[in-house]
């Protein structure tokens, strides 16, 4: 099918980038055999997961130009669907995950419709509000375990429930999602919706004059982003085997996702990956180092915050923006 061909077609990228990404993929495939400790493995898994989140956010936040800060609620939807279905009715992952994605899609259309009447600051604040509302609901809803969260029963090694005793399996699992995500984004940016979205971002009025229903396009992109993120959420459920509203629907999670994409360079394919590659190890290693220094609590976020402010003030297009600027492409 044409779409599959498009997804694998990276020919419009410069050769340097293609080779670089190829090497990176080989590295990723071989990683578990490179003799890393379990901490390193955990970091890599986080990196791949957050790249996935970042790429998803990118559809609406980067290409679409609508900065939204409420992605965590969809992580929650994905995670909780899998968790609840498994704990209550013993439903395998491969049924609950798609269901979670469907719920995420449905919910995103539902709130997307009024949300996208808004623009700019109002929109961003509204996305925060919706995420906080949902988190509030989950904290108080006994059906999903309220504030205590849900602990998933351990099932040993099983592909049916996607639980494993060896982290390596989880690694390849998330790697598969990651690669699928990259291929999807590659197709997306060249698709009709991708072009329309980019036009909307540059000049919404002009886009409308070309027959584009801007609001509907944004909603579609938002829904896609939500689906991406819900898939990641479902992974978290079977990986951590414990979820609660605080960990999967936290506002800080939404911020990290947006930040990663923006740091690396929103509106580019590599941006979210670069952003995750910097922030995830930073977060993990800094976090563990600080863990031993209780008196320095809070410093890690201060550093992220400083990075955010710096990027915002001097290079809003992120690291990839710097690369592109170096190449001579002006904005």
């Amino acid at each position, binding site marked *: 099918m044409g779409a599959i061909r498009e997804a694998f077609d990276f020919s419009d990228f410069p050769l340097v980038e293609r080779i670089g990404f190829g090497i990176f993929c080989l590295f990723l495939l071989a990683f578990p055999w490179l003799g890393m400790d379990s901490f390193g493995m955990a970091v890599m898994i986080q990196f791949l997961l957050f790249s996935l989140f970042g790429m998803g956010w990118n559809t609406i936040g980067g290409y679409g130009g609508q900065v939204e800060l409420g992605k965590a609620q969809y992580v929650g939807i994905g995670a909780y669907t899998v968790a609840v279905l498994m704990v209550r009715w013993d439903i395998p992952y491969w049924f609950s995950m798609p269901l979670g994605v469907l719920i995420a899609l449905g919910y995103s259309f539902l709130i997307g419709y009024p949300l996208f009447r808004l623009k700019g600051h109002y929109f961003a604040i509204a996305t925060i509000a919706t995420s906080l509302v949902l988190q509030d609901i989950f904290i108080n809803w006994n059906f999903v375990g309220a504030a205590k969260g849900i602990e998933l029963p351990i099932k040993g090694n099983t592909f049916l429930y996607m639980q494993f005793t060896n982290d390596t399996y989880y690694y390849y699992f998330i790697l598969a999602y990651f690669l699928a995500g990259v291929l999807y984004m590659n197709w997306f940016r060249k698709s009709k919706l991708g*072009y329309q979205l980019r036009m909307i971002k540059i000049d919404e009025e002009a886009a409308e*004059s070309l027959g584009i229903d801007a609001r509907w396009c944004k909603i579609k992109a938002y829904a896609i982003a939500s689906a991406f993120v819900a898939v990641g959420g479902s992974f978290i459920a079977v990986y951590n085997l414990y979820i609660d509203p605080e960990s999967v629907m936290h506002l800080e999670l939404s911020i990290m996702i947006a930040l990663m994409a923006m740091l690396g360079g929103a509106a580019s394919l590599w941006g979210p990956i670069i952003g995750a590659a910097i922030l995830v190890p930073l977060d993990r290693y800094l976090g563990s180092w600080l863990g031993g220094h209780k008196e320095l609590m809070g410093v890690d976020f201060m550093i992220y915050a400083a990075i955010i402010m710096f990027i915002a003030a001097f290079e809003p297009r992120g690291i990839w923006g710097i690369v592109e600027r170096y190449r001579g492409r002006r904005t």
Partner: protein
Amino acid sequence: MAFLEVRNLTKDFGGIVANNDVSFSLEEGEIVGLIGPNGAGKTTLFNCIVGYYRPDGGRVIFRGRDITGWKPFQTAREGIGRTFQLMRAAGELTALEHVMVGAFLHQEDRVEAEREAREVLAFMGLEGVADLYLTELPLAIQKQVGLARALAIKPVLLMLDEVASGLNPTETEEMVKLLKRIHREKGITLFLIEHVMEVVMPISERVIVLDGGMKIAEGPPEEIAHDEKVIKAYLGEKYARGL
């Protein structure tokens, strides 16, 4: 049945009546100009037709359908294309990609959209700039890309918003020739909102004049140039001497 009919159009901005009971019509295949001094209500009228504003009174009827109050993307889908005075140039899309977005209105497939876009660019003699970003192009070329983009949606009525603003005399001449070609070879009806008389007068078959929100004259360019009301409205604009 007229191609485009504007009937008793009124638009009121909280006290300021920008368009006051304006009526006129266009026939298919015409080139019609809309002129008037600053503040006459030309832009408001333009926006009421394309859908950016909702008129407070009156109707806009296009090809027999009442499009009053339709949103811009809906009027575009009906076949009304438009250009913009200001092209928001950002370094994110090339000229080709801009035109492709237009082509996507009738196309689902990217390869086809690209082919169509290249055709339009070739028609306008812009193949050379296809892969350049708008920020790298001079204003006159940017405006031509904007025109190409509008053409890509295959409009039957093209509304041109001050298409000559910011152009020097040579560029203006080029634009006039281009518009004539578009009209001749593509059979598109043209409706120009213009300040620059060197563009409107030579190519319009008919000119409508607005002043203070109302239509004060309508007719062939030569008549309009000598119409007392029009001259008064402009208070001695250079065009009267020119023609």
